[in-house]
């Protein structure tokens, strides 16, 4: 609630308070509150609090809070990542003219995210789900005077909307089947979902029954929601463009928390997934991980590489859910939150310094472009160390937290594939290749940015001595340091090599997995990953530090990677242009067919009226006129008798007498 208060405070005060102290205090309050809650609830009985909201007919909806292991873990995780970001933002966004809006939106986001994780009803979760998307929209378009930022936030919102549609469909299916949206009623220990079963091709629940296909469709609908929010292929296109927002925003929202909301949702509704839905999730997750890793290889914007890395890791998490080990997925979510946030914050520090250099030297270069950097470890040693720790965690190097979580997913996927059949081995093999690629591209980032010579030295003409690049300010370094500590293994498990000892996974899902563990896999796979990463780094060193790059920089595979597989262009042609063409067609149809139809009716009515005018004028009036003229003519003819000539009169007398004679004689 305290971020909500901070949001209201900041929105009311506006420009008068630009320090962000209130937001910071609010998130610190959430941090302590979340921590206390977590300590009390973890591995204890869940707590729920409810109040009536509204009633329709016989169904009443309640609003309430559910605090179980999963939600309190997220409730503690979000402020733990948000608090360093708030502190960091004070230095990063200093001097920005819109900073009061920044604090406002950031608090709104924190409120929405915290609300999302503790709600006990799917309907309320949906409300906060949309609110999180909205806050993301506001923050991506924070520098709204930039055209690219506006396009990006529009794109993010539209793609998210597709996911919201999936959420709605899922809500409808669940409500139809179970007549309730309450999480405890559905998924609790004696939940309705556990009392339902598939019987004779029908999905039967205690209150309703539907054909079996709806069970799969319900799960897939929620997965669609997660696909959009957590940037799965093919709805991942908004995340690289979302890097238009400030780096601190990218670190909080698009690395650690909001994109994790999708994974959180899937973990919450996990019993709703059928076998086919889970397999679909795993396949999509693998495709996402692989394609994003490929795209990351060719990018040269720091934040884009990290964005694709996020998409790739989210793919890992989805695979974790798809194979049934949602606790491993959430474990990876937690460790990823810390090291990805740290990666973004370090990248932000680098960009901050490069931007300073740009304003001081008055050159025109892109501060985020890797090709302008190099040798930065001499100027920013602490940033370099922290970024390296985070990179090692991302690559899954032993002794880091990332090693534990990534291995948990890869090894479990291998065991799962073994239990299913040999064709399923494609998934763990792909994950292994992606992990090696991950190590490679993050190594590439480090080598190009921090090693070698600073590439702009020639262009600066010795101005480097006047305005040298320096280390990031303390306000930025302290939060990064805190996050760096969390990237190492001791926070998560006392045994750096075995994830089964992790308290986090135990707390979430204590049952055994459906597939048998394989001890060989536990040894071989980490070894393969470690060796692969090291070989990748050696190759990267050769190519990027010693400049022995063997490929032609313009080769087509790199072009495809840089252009993100041309997916954006495809969407533009098919959907954007398609919609525009449809709109044009509708306009044409309206003008030429509908309006033509109306004017056709109009002309028919007009001609009918003209016809009736003609009939009236010539036929009806004509009839009357004819009668009149006949009468007149007759009269006129008769009148001819009266011509004033006496002989005519005499003649007519004679005629009448003759007629009378004939009458008398013959009749």
């Amino acid at each position, binding site marked *: 609630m305290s971020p909500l208060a901070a949001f209201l405070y900041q929105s009311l005060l506006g420009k008068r308070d630009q320090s962000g102290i209130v937001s910071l205090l609010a998130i610190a309050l959430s941090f302590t509150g979340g921590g206390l809650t977590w300590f009390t609830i973890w591995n204890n009985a869940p707590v729920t609090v409810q109040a009536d909201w509204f009633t329709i007919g016989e169904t009443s909806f309640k609003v309430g809070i559910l605090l179980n292991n999963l939600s309190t873990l997220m409730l503690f995780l979000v402020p733990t990542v948000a608090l360093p970001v708030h502190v960091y933002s004070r230095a990063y966004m200093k001097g920005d003219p819109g900073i009061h809006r920044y604090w406002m939106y950031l608090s709104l986001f924190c409120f929405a995210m915290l609300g999302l994780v503790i709600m006990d009803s799917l309907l309320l979760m949906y409300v906060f789900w949309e609110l999180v998307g909205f806050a993301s929209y506001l923050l991506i378009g924070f520098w709204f005077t930039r055209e690219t930022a506006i396009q990006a936030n529009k794109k993010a919102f539209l793609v998210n909307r597709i996911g919201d549609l999936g959420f709605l469909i899922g809500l409808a299916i669940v409500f139809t089947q179970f007549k309730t949206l309450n999480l405890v009623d559905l998924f609790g220990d004696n939940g309705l979902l556990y009392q339902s079963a598939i019987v004779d091709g029908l999905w039967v629940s205690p209150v309703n029954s539907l054909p079996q296909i709806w069970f799969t469709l319900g799960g897939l609908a929620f997965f669609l929601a997660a696909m959009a929010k957590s940037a799965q292929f093919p709805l991942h296109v908004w995340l690289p463009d979302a890097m238009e927002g400030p780096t601190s925003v990218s670190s909080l929202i698009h690395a650690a928390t909001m994109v994790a909301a999708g994974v959180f949702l899937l973990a919450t509704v996990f019993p709703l997934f059928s076998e086919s839905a889970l397999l679909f999730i795993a396949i999509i997750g693998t495709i996402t991980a692989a394609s994003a890793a490929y795209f990351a290889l060719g990018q040269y914007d720091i934040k884009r590489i990290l964005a694709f890395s996020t998409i790739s890791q989210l793919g890992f998490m989805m695979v974790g859910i798809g194979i049934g080990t949602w606790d491993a997925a959430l474990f990876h979510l937690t460790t990823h939150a810390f090291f990805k946030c740290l990666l973004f914050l370090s990248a932000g520090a680098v960009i901050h310094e490069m931007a300073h250099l740009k304003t001081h030297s008055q050159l025109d270069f892109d501060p985020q472009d890797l090709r302008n950097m190099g040798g930065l470890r001499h100027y920013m040693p602490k940033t370099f160390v922290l970024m390296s720790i985070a990179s090692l965690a991302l690559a899954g190097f032993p002794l880091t937290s990332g090693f534990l979580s990534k291995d948990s997913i890869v090894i479990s996927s291998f065991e799962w594939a073994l239990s299913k059949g040999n064709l399923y081995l494609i998934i763990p093999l792909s994950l292994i290749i992606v992990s090696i690629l991950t190590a490679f591209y993050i190594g590439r980032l480090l080598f190009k940015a921090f090693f070698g010579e600073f590439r702009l030295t020639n262009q600066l003409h010795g101005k480097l001595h006047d305005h040298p690049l320096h280390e990031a300010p303390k306000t930025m370094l302290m939060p990064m340091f805190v996050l760096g500590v969390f990237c190492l293994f001791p926070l998560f498990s006392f045994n750096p090599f075995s994830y089964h000892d992790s308290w986090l996974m135990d707390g979430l899902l204590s049952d055994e997995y459906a597939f048998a563990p394989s001890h060989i896999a536990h040894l071989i796979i980490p070894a393969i990953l470690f060796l692969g990463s090291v070989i990748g780094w050696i190759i990267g060193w050769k190519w990027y530090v010693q400049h022995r790059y063997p490929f032609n920089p313009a080769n087509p595979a790199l072009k495809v990677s840089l252009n993100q597989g041309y997916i954006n262009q495809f969407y533009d042609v098919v959907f954007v242009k398609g919609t525009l063409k449809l709109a044009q067609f509708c306009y044409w149809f309206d003008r030429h067919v509908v309006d033509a139809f109306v004017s056709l009716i109009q002309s028919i009515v007009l001609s009918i009226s003209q016809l009736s005018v003609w009939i009236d004028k010539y036929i009806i009036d004509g009839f009357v006129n004819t009668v009149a003229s006949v009468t007149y003519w007759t009269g006129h003819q008769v*009148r001819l008798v*009266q*011509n*004033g*000539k*006496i*002989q005519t009169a*005499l*003649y007519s007398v*004679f005629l009448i007498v003759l007629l009378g004679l004939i009458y008398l004689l013959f009749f």
Partner: protein
Amino acid sequence: MITLTHFLVVSACIFSIGLYTVLSKKNAIMILVGIELMINAAILNFVAFGKYDKVSYSGQIFALFAIVLAAAAVAVGLAIVLNVYRHYNTINPDEVNQLKDK
């Protein structure tokens, strides 16, 4: 023998000729002539039927009166024609059509 019918036929013929003359001549004097002819035909008729009144010979007597009346009528007719001529300067009855219905 000459029967009554011969007289009646002749009388009818003269009457018809007189009627035709009245109706078709374009000279007022000729109309008078026609009138005279019609009267004379009627007189002839009287005389023809007078054969059946051997007591008072009323047919023939009336015929004498009729001849006088015919003369008087023609005199008046001529006076009218003279006046008409004086006014209209013509004796063609077709041209005296002031009473025409305009």
